[in-house]
């Protein structure tokens, strides 16, 4: 008879199709398939995805859907996860008082302090005070340069200029003396006139010194110590830029506002621990370890984290049709990150790096849901549908089809929504654990830290997670992440020139950001380290004998994220300290790390049948 094992995961649905012969015999695998999961794992919305995956598999085997005698579902995939991220600080400028940005090409060099004047007022400007000219786009560079030069010749002490258009270098080149000029200031009509301001432009390849230093600003504006503490956020936001303007307005006030981030209440089976969000991810994870095993999590109401936890609960409650009060969060993974946020009140669309905490949460579903799903699938297909064994056992059974593997064995299942671990020792039951946070969390971190388009367009972040980077250095060659160079016979698309691109199966694909290759690589690797490596360690110590990872000798990596091109290497580096060997599984000797559970379901069925 023909049996199909179906494993519904957070992001993919996998099928293993086999001919199961005589009771106790070895199943003959015919085909496998892997399709995107439709809807949220464990709901009726999964049915179309399962059907599509089954169709693909039967096509491969040259059969029809009707030829399948039995469909096996993994028993209550026990967990579903959700992710969220909130910033815990925010920079607000109540009066416009700074412009700090990296226009492609600021003009001139140095630092200039003076009172802001519109360029049209230069003709009548007094000669006894330092002046910074404000040049709207209505003045093209020749005219602006002429007016500035005329004023300088008349004896007006012009010390710098703020320009709206992309003309900084052009104006600077046409002046009798070298002035720092900041250009591409989009909201120039909001630059207050008649105010004391400072403009700084650094030399090529350098960043500003004076305006990114709070005491530098204090020196220029003769600030009191109290006022100096007020401008620290400005200095902080200007670090690393090539040009900047700081304007002193009487009511000017920039502040880093701490959004009440609230605290997480981790309710364990034995004790309850409060973890304030603004003390960072490490503190939360420490508190979590103290509260382990976790019964539920609550967020402080009226705060960001309260909203976050409530959202997770609401999503789960909508899905499972259980009241929100009965949805219990069984694990969380908190990750610190720095996300660029637009400064509210900035004049040139400045960004400031703000602290944020990303949170992955996991909720237990009940068996009832899977039974509903099995029922729905049966109705749809007209084929008998059975719930197979426990997911962890199935995964181990499937993983054991990897050549060279034997018990005792630990597996690490890196999926999209959860990181699971299971361990099988001689004469003992399989022990397993499910933790929140995996591939989807990595994608979210990459998307937020690099400020990529969000929402349904996490595509770019997803691709960055999956594919290695290159920098296109000329029309004929690219440089890889490891600094090796590859040449092409045919010239590349000029749209790729000078860009950072991804090596995808469809060729090079440019990344629509201005980040450097090194920055993207660092963010990508750091995200994987903070989610996969951290969760792998958490999961393994949870299942290891006596909580000691050293007791585990072999670990096999399975799951979709096991296909990642660098995670296995990172885990190897980390686990080397414990003397543990880690390798990527190769299910049935050919499928790589995927299809473990689906294969295990079929094997278990064949074995079980033999026992009957």
């Amino acid at each position: 008879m023909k049996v199909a094992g179906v494993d519904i995961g957070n992001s993919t649905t996998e099928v293993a199709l086999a001919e199961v012969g005589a009771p106790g015999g070895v199943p003959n695998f015919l085909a496998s398939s892997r399709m995107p999961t439709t809807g949220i794992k464990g709901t009726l919305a999964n049915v179309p995805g399962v059907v599509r995956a089954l169709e693909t598999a039967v096509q491969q085997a040259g059969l029809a859907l009707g030829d399948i005698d039995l469909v096996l579902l993994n028993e209550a995939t026990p967990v579903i996860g959700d992710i969220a991220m909130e910033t815990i600080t925010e920079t607000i400028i109540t009066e416009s008082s700074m412009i700090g940005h990296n226009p492609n090409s600021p003009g001139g060099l140095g630092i200039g302090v003076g009172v802001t004047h519109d360029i049209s007022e230069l003709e009548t400007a007094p000669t006894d005070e330092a002046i910074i000219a404000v040049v709207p786009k209505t003045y093209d560079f020749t005219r602006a340069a002429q007016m500035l030069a005329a004023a300088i010749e008349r004896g007006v002490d012009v010390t710098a200029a703020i320009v709206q258009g992309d003309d900084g270098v052009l104006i600077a080149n046409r002046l009798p003396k070298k002035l720092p000029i900041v250009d591409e200031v989009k909201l120039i009509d909001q630059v207050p006139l008649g105010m004391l301001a400072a403009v700084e432009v650094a030399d090529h390849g350098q960043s500003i010194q004076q305006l990114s230093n709070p005491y530098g600003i204090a020196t220029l504006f003769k600030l009191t110590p109290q006022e100096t503490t007020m401008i620290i956020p400005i200095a902080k936001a200007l670090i690393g830029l090539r040009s900047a303007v700081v304007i002193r307005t009487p009511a000017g006030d920039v502040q880093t506002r701490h959004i009440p981030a609230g605290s997480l209440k981790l309710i364990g089976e034995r004790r309850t621990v409060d973890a304030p969000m603004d003390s960072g991810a490490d503190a939360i994870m420490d508190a979590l370890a103290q509260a382990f095993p976790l019964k539920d999590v609550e967020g402080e109401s009226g705060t960001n984290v309260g909203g976050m936890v409530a959202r997770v609960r609401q999503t789960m409650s909508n899905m499972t049709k259980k009241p929100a009060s009965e949805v219990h969060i069984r694990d969380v993974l908190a990750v610190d990150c720095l996300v660029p946020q637009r400064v509210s009140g900035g004049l040139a669309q400045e960004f400031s790096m703000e602290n944020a905490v990303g949170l992955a949460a996991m909720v237990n579903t009940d068996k009832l849901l899977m039974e509903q799903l099995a029922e729905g699938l049966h109705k749809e297909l007209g084929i008998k549908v059975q719930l197979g064994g426990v997911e962890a056992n199935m995964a181990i059974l499937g993983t054991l089809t990897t050549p060279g593997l034997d018990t005792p064995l630990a597996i690490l299942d890196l999926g999209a929504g959860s990181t699971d671990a299971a361990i099988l020792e001689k004469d003992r039951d399989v022990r397993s654990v499910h933790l929140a946070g995996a591939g989807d969390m990595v994608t979210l971190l990459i998307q937020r830290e690099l400020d990529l388009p969000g929402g349904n367009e996490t595509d770019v972040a997803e691709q960055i997670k999956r594919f290695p980077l290159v920098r296109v250095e000329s029309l004929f060659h690219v440089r890889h992440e490891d600094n090796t160079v590859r040449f092409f016979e045919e010239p590349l698309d000029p749209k790729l020139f000078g860009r950072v691109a991804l090596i995808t199966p469809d060729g090079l694909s440019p990344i629509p950001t201005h980040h450097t290759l090194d920055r993207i690589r660092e963010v990508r690797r750091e995200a994987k380290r903070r989610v996969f490596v951290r969760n792998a360690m958490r999961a393994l110590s949870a299942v290891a004998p006596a909580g000691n990872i050293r007791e585990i000798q072999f670990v096999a990596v399975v799951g979709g994220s096991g296909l990642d091109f660098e995670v296995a290497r990172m885990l190897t580096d980390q686990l080397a300290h414990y003397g543990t060997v880690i390798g990527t599984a190769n299910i049935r000797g050919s499928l790589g790390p995927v299809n473990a559970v689906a294969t295990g379901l079929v094997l278990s069925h064949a074995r079980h049948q033999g026992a009957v």
Partner: protein
Amino acid sequence: MAEKSERPTINVAVVRGAAPSLYDWVLIGAEEEGVPTKLAEAASGDVVDAAYAAAISSRIDIGVAIGADAIVLHERHMPPEKPVLTIPYEGKSEAVCRRAGANAARMVARLPLLFEDAVEDVDEQVRPASERRAAARSAASAPAKTAAASWDGNGGGMPAQGQARAEGSAARTCTNQHAAETARPTAGEAASQLALSEAEIRKIVKIVVAIIKERGTQWR
């Protein structure tokens, strides 16, 4: 071949039949990016051949040729008949030439090239309300009174579209005005009369093109 003693420059050829004044715009584009240019003899009447010859004669391997209705950017290592970019003027010869100059310089600096239709800057997709107001204002201050009217008329219902329309008509007015003013020696003055700079025109046109592509609407 280039002389060893020669200063490295982007070599620019003006092909017969092209407006010689366009060279200034290529030069301005390259200057803002900080790369020197040199006017080279047009080696051929064909704009692609001339661009290739200019690239061969350049010590930094980049050549530009200004044609009668398109500008060509070439690089020494490319096949002679396959230039890096060929951009037709389509009535905006000065903006196109300035951008070509900037792109030639960006090739030297190994920076990503600028493309008119590439709406990829985040800050262009998400423009703050105040900037939109500024755009609407500048549209209103331009002779295009209709632009302001359509913005106002649409203000409540569909602000995004209203803005697009305002910008659309602003852009249209400037191109028309621009064409009329090309006889003037410094076209920058034409732009300044309209309260719009080359960069802003470029940006508005970019947005309008993106909208047209998206909706398939014909702006008249």
